[in-house]
């Protein structure tokens, strides 16, 4: 634990990293599925699905948070059943994961969808004439070709989750050590007199994590693209 961060500050940083990583990894399979459906399939309600996915991007975050509370709160219409099974999301760090995942989902889906649309379906057809079933075509042709898009989508989602504030604070509040993420901690420090230096240290951490994620994703997607293009 670096001693230039107080235990409370460090806890906020660690919680944010944990929440963002979980949010990214848990939403990735669904993100790939939805991106595929939107890029390739024609089905009833496609525009509704597209709208739902993008809603968190255009709604005020506080509205998304409140809707999450109405839905997944202990008395919410999904939350009450989860509560019966002993799963509580509201005011828990797991709820922060849900809020971050929902807010980051549109960015992830958009990046992956673009890469799916860039895959030439004729190449997949060629694979099927060589004897590959649809599952094998996906695993050996499509997935490797959209990997750069998946990496970009995942990193964007991670960065968005690290910075998520409005929906998170509305859904799970701002409890130090439990639901106080990096942005919530900065907000809390700014609310007390003399909290500016602490807030500023967290701002630096925030900038560092965001930059590191960006550089990492650039490097990774370039490396993958290079491997694909063989240049």
């Amino acid at each position, binding site marked *: 634990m670096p001693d230039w961060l107080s235990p409370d500050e460090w806890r906020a940083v660690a919680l944010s990293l944990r929440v963002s990583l979980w949010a990214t990894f848990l939403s990735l399979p669904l993100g790939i599925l939805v991106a595929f459906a939107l890029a390739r399939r024609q089905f009833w309600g496609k525009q509704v699905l597209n709208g739902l996915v993008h809603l968190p991007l255009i709604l005020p975050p506080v509205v998304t948070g409140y809707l999450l509370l109405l839905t997944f709160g202990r008395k919410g219409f999904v939350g009450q059943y989860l509560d019966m099974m002993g799963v509580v999301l509201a005011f828990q760090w797991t709820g922060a994961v849900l809020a971050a995942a929902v807010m980051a989902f549109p960015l992830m889906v958009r990046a992956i969808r673009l890469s799916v649309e860039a895959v030439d379906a004729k*190449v997949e*057809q060629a694979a*099927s*004439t060589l*004897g590959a*079933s649809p599952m094998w075509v996906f695993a*050996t042709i499509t997935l*490797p070709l959209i990997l750069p898009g998946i990496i970009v989508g995942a990193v964007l989602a991670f960065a968005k989750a690290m910075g998520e504030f409005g929906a998170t604070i509305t859904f799970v509040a701002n409890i130090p050590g439990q639901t106080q993420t990096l942005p919530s901690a900065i907000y809390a420090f700014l609310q007390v007199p003399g909290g500016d230096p602490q807030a500023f240290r967290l701002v630096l951490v925030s900038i560092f994590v965001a930059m590191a994620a960006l550089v990492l994703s650039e490097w990774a997607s370039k490396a993958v693209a290079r491997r*694909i293009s*063989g240049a």
Partner: protein
Amino acid sequence: MTVQVSLQHAFDAFALDVAFELPAGVTALFGPSGAGKSSVIKAVAGLMRPDQGLIRAGDQVLLDTDKGINLPPHRRRIGCVFQDDRLFPHLTVRQNLSYGRWFSPGKGGVSFDQVVAMLGIAPLLARRPQTLSGGERQRVAIGRALLSNPQILAMDEPLAALDEARKAEILPYLEHLRDQTQIPILYVSHSVSEITRLAGKVVVLGKGRVLKAGPVAEVFSDPNLSPWLGGVREAGSVITATVAAQEHDGLTRLHTSAGPLWLPRVDAAIGAALRVRIAAQDVMLAVQRPEGISALNILPATVVSLRMGDGPGAMVQLRLGEDLLLARITRRSAMHLGLTVGSPVFAVLKTVAVAPGDIGAPPITP
């Protein structure tokens, strides 16, 4: 193994209604663009579902719309080569070639080393598709299809995207392929010279229908089909010959059933069998043996049929020994010479009129 194809499908622009058989060897599907050639390939490969159809490869039914049978592409074992090579960009040449091997049931068919040697792609194995030339890519695509252990090879204008030099590079490999494998090959093309070199049988399509099907020499010398065979300028016939001698002044003497035929140097061994495509517009006709003329090839022939065109031209089909020859002359000349069916004539062909691309090895299959 014989493949039976029968398809009906209503497109927006035209209706496809074709039926033909695919014996061993190369069967060419010929016709102008929009005739439905590519749709036939797609339906055979399972990439398109026709309204009505029956496709049978030997005993195996690939498609029978009446019985509701429609095997998906990956269970049909149709090796496809497309106009665009469609190589997998994220895999090396070796991985591209081996891709179909994963899925092919049993071992049978040609070996990896055989295919690599036949197509001359050993130096390319470690490279990626993006670093290859167009001709190299198409050779790899052919190898990839072959190595999937297909029961039919379906080639959709595999040379159309290449320039003349690349075509000349690949054609000999396709000739090897035809002679060294027993797989029926469905070869779509709108190039008369490609088909002349490769195919034993040709199915001529026009506006979604089969206009004529049969041996290449017979179909291509049919004067009634010349408007469909890429227009009168493209019309021509195919004759068979063997190399008789390489002469000192750069000419090659061929032996045909009607007499000697001199061509510019042909790189083939004495005794080698050849097929030569002769464009109809390069053939002159005379009722007496001409004297004092620069053309070296003067062969006796008999008029089999005459077709007067709508314009000034006439198409004359001739029997030349055991072959059929097509000559395009003017209607005025036909009248003036008094040509009728059965007239004896002399066919005159300039030696330099035959391009190297029009000479190929005949299929070994009978």
